[in-house]
């Protein structure tokens, strides 16, 4: 009887890994369990899904059953919302450990977090709060990103925030701050184009000017989302990053411009409250996919960001 060759440990463990679905050039949506049945019934498999990491930090139960199912059939992007990377206090090592365990367990195609903070002292505020852009905060945030990337053993994508206020103590622009974080830490970027549009409106600058200053060559994922309108103290338009409605025309135009210049980049449509039925959310992802595909011909496979 012929002896089978021994498999290396790496190969043996690979048997139990999820399929390595490519996320390159794909559009996706936030994963909401309300949509799970409709997603599973859908024959199409050319999407990707993004999950908020914290929702899967329980030990077991239906959340993990759902994510296992989805991860088997689709590429998954793991999106952290409460690492508090932009805060002055030390990272929560317990939380970082939980985050790493999820990365190891689900082998996400992309891993991201926010340029923001959400915990102060022991209080968790469940919002993405702003920070001043100074030499001191730059050093602190870069140190936090280093710690995360070291713990995960992989690159983290950092997302640009939507903001409503400024800190007069800031000494540099947000785009310069972000470019410098990339240079110091080697992190990648998640460009949220709705956030750019919201912040541009709220602070009175041109979204295209922000994008011109943004280190787009380091962007490995794009976010699109809907926003709502309010007014500031002066009665001027103030946009709220609400994730509760379709992407606006202005944001689609900016997205078209970025994809036209940089080629296919995995793009996610976020929708977190007032959830629509699955076909409507899927249609938003289809619209993003159509723009990606329309521009794809001009870009060689493997070039620039199609590599991810």
């Amino acid at each position: 009887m012929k002896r089978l060759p021994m498999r290396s440990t790496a190969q043996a463990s690979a048997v139990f890994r999820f399929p390595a679905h490519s996320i390159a050039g794909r559009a996706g949506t936030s994963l909401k369990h309300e949509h799970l049945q409709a997603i599973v019934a859908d024959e199409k498999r050319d999407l990707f899904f993004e999950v908020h990491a914290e929702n899967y930090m329980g030990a077991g139960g239906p959340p993990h059953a759902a994510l296992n199912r989805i991860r088997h059939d689709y590429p998954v992007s793991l999106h952290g919302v409460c690492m508090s990377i932009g805060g002055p206090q030390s990272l929560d090592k317990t939380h970082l450990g939980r985050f790493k365990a999820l990365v190891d367990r689900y082998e996400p195609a992309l891993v991201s977090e926010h340029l923001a903070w959400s915990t102060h002292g022991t209080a968790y505020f469940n919002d993405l709060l702003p920070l001043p852009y100074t030499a001191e905060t730059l050093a602190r945030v870069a140190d936090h990103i280093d710690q995360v990337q070291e713990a995960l053993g992989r690159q983290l994508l950092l997302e640009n925030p939507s903001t409503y206020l400024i800190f007069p103590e800031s000494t540099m622009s947000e785009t310069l701050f972000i470019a410098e974080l990339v240079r110091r830490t080697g992190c990648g970027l998640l460009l949220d184009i709705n956030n750019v549009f919201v912040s541009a409106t709220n602070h009175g600058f041109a979204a295209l000017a922000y994008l011109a200053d943004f280190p787009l060559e380091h962007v490995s994922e794009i976010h699109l989302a809907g926003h709502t309108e309010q007014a500031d103290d002066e009665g001027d338009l103030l946009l709220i990053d609400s994730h509760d409605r379709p992407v606006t025309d202005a944001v689609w135009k900016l997205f078209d411009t970025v994809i036209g210049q940089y080629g296919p980049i995995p793009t996610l449509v976020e929708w977190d409250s007032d959830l629509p039925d699955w076909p409507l959310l899927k249609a938003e992802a289809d619209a993003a996919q159509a723009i990606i595909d329309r521009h794809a011909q001009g870009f060689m496979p493997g070039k620039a960001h199609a590599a991810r």
Partner: protein
Amino acid sequence: MPPVEGREGDSGEPSYAAVFAGALLDPDLATPAAVAGPKSKAAGKRYDIYRNNVTVSLINAVAAVFPTTQRITGGDFFRAMARFYVRATPPTSPLLFEYGRDFPNFIEQYEYAQSVPWLADVARIERAWLDAYHAADIQPLMPHALASIPSERLVDTILKPHPAARIVRSRFPAVTIFTANRSDGSASRVEVVEAEDALLTRPALDVEARRLPPGGAIFVTRLIAGDSLGTAASAALSDSPSFDLAANIGGLLEAGAFTTALYRESQ
């Protein structure tokens, strides 16, 4: 949570986060002076967006943990109550499914909830329900598992609790009220008035809530604490003379309350 280190800037001044966070949960405090609108605009309404985001999202988080409690009180009453709660007790973990462990105690003390004294116990069942939902995935002990244990060994047998198993005791018919209001739609009128103890388990993916028979809560609480079947049964019997050992064991195994039976082999 990590120790509160590195929060203050090198200068010893409060950090931007300390200043910004200070007024987030208190609408009566002034907008922090460290923030501004762009181009000399005012910061007030802009800062209020963060205040609103924080408060509303935390109220939503409480509502997500306690949907049955909200269904019973109605949305306006619940959100008003939760607003007081989140401002007094913001979460101390970013895992919001862990939030609200002291919310039932808050309900018990809440001035406007005094007319519904059973509401806190329904909330306790609901908090335990979510713990069961997120508990580790472990195959429960099969109902016939004890049949293979020699009868003379049963009294010394120790049953290891399933990670999802939870007990909530109530002086009110809290299980019946919880079950009647768990799903959407008009709740049937609750006619029961006796005390009820709840057992929550998750044998597979669905959480199950059931009433424990007389003495059952004592029995299973002692078993979870590591007491042997014999010791737990004695405690249950002295609490409730009508305690039925076979029916209780059968019910607990059927609910998936345990993972392993440990007993000493005969010499």
